[in-house]
């Protein structure tokens, strides 16, 4: 038995096979995520085509500055995540801890800002169903837009919360010095997941905040 065997699950032949399997599994999971958000984006597309005026009006209730800053924050968290993955690949457990913590921090900032935005929507009476009192010109389509706004950003935020939860786990693994140049699938897959969540936001930002701004 040589050293790597300790890191090999019993049903794999070698560490290489194990790592490839983990990577492929994660990518398939992401393909699944694409279709999950895809259903939402699809529905959004249809309603935007059917009632552009309302979507435009509704979009103007959102604050572009906040949205843009938050985009930057999230991209920043992708950077720190990429660096955490790098540290993992090199078997640098301390590096993993530091960068994952930074990513969590930036993620928390993003979610905090999102929270502020949500409460702002409440004050302006833009919560569909529960508290929709805003005066609208274009009618019900505005409310419909906000349904999508909340479901899409809410699903996105939920993914981030799950991501942050997974980061706690990875932190623990890093504390136990579990990452080695051979075995670091957990950080690697966490990174893929987090970047995917970032990509979702990259599309959400223009689709929600930037409709007919000119």
């Amino acid at each position, binding site marked *: 038995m040589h050293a790597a065997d300790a890191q090999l699950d019993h049903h794999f032949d070698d560490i290489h096979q194990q790592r490839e399997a983990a990577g492929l599994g994660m990518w398939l999971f992401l393909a699944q995520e694409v*279709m999950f958000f895809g259903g939402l984006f*699809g529905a959004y597309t249809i309603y935007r085509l059917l009632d552009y005026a309302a979507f435009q009006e509704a979009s103007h209730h959102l604050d572009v500055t906040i949205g843009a800053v938050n985009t930057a924050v999230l991209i920043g968290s992708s950077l720190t995540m990429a660096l955490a993955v790098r540290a993992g690949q090199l078997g640098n457990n301390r590096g993993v801890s530091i960068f994952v913590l930074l990513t969590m921090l930036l993620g928390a900032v993003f979610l905090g800002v999102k929270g502020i935005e949500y409460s702002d929507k409440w004050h302006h009476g833009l919560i*569909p169903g529960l508290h929709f009192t805003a005066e609208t010109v274009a009618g019900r389509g505005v409310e419909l837009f906000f349904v999508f706004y909340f479901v899409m950003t809410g699903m996105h935020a939920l993914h981030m919360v799950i991501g942050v939860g997974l980061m706690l786990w990875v932190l623990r693994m890093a504390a136990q010095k579990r990452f080695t140049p051979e075995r670091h699938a957990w950080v690697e897959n966490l990174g893929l997941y987090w970047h995917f969540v970032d990509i979702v936001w990259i599309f959400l930002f223009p689709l929600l905040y930037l409709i007919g701004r000119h």
Partner: protein
Amino acid sequence: MIEANPASNYLGAAHGLRSWLLTRDHKRIGVLYLLGVTFFFFIGGAFAVLMRFELATPEADLVASDTYNRLFSMHGIVMTFLFLVPSIPASLGNFLLPLMLGARDLAFPKLNLLSWYVFMVGGLFTVAAAAFGGVDTGWTFYTPYSSTYANSNVMLAAVGVFITGFSSILTGVNFIVTIHKMRAPGLTWFRLPLFVWAHYATSLIMVLGTPVLAITLLLVAVERLLGVGIFDPSLGGDPILFQHLFWFYSHPAVYIMVLPGMGVISEIITCFARKPIFGYKFIAFSSMAIAVLGFLVWGHHMFVSGQSVYAGVAFSMLTMAVSVPSAIKVFNWLATMFRGSIVFDSPMIYALGFIGLFTIGGLTGVFLGTLGLDLHVHDTYFVVAHFHFIMVGATVMAYLAAIHFWWPKIFGRTFPENWAKFAALMVFAGFILAFFPQFVLGYLGMPRRYHIYPDEFQMLNVLSSAGASILGVGYLIPMVYLLGSLRIGKKAAANPWGAKGLEWKTTSPPPVENFETPPTVEGDVYEYKNPHVVRPPEVTLARG
């Protein structure tokens, strides 16, 4: 050689409930699924029995309308999401895939166990929905009825289906990775058993289709909770959009329900015809073609829905295209029988039943895909007959065929072959009587989901109900002798049918790690050369 030490096989390796509920062995998880799925089949069947009793007369005499509506909704939901979608893949696929690949387990054993728990929790929600008054939307959850008007347990049922969806996704991911990464040395793509190809195609659909259903049900739930109009026009939404999203999953899902069955039949036909499969590559690629093309035809459920007429025409054309790969499969199976040396053991009888009933179900699918005809028979019993021919006639037959075929492998016991043949014939006869009259009813114009109906439809409905009773008994018989075989059945040999494929090269039941020595593969899968099944003397099947 066959008499392995009982403690070393996966069944005897550990004892007690805990050892089952915490297992990560794909074989045990497969057995857990087998139990769960079969349980839900009988629940769904019980709903069907009540429905058929009610429909024996034109009036409402057994149950009230609201109850009837709950019966067919629960029947459809349980049968599709809790029984047929996971039936073959999650139970037999789970058990067999690593064996057929010469692997020790699936790529992600923990995920595999998780998927079973997810499935059971989802099932629990759905059963809870039934227990707390049921759901009355039909299995299709059409809006705005489901989102605004229905006052039944739509939320519970939707959440249940939502959750089970994730178990499909996990299974799909697991299978794809396993097939890609864990094949034994020498097991190239074109040496894979066709069962594996079928599961590969199925898994693709599970991974790419299921999430759309999940998000769609989530939107319905949000709409119900908040009263905002996502799919309700009076609030600004569009009900047809729901149908698009629903069928984007649910049409491909019907191929989730039949492709694994086709895989089973490919294995059985070649084994009992004692001949290499005819057109291996064509069968393999047609599975893939069905999976991919299957994603382009969902609009054929919406020909009369108010969808654009042009879209209807386009979807009809693609629907026609998807029937050709199915035709290729049927012809290849027939050609496999040509010049064979056919042995009519019970799995083969079920398999022959599959081919016949699938052909009728498939051809009537083409009937429905013909725009001018769907105009008339959409949402009539013609559709009900079509899909029962495929789902019950074909896939449940395949499920039973598979259980009989691999039963000796899974549990290491043989079952009484004559009873098995008798049950197979009874199922076939009961089935035809139950569902053939429904084609006539459909063309006569009897709408589906009708609790009461005009008098002139009664005769055919009585026939159908009678058939359903025979069918029900036919399904109960295997339950009895199969369970009985666990106690009194003879020990099965490693390879009682003389079949090819790696799963037959290990003991029955297989050891925990599947193979004593990791297998390597040389040559093709189906190298049947001998017209006779060479059965070791101690394992001749118990007759009678």
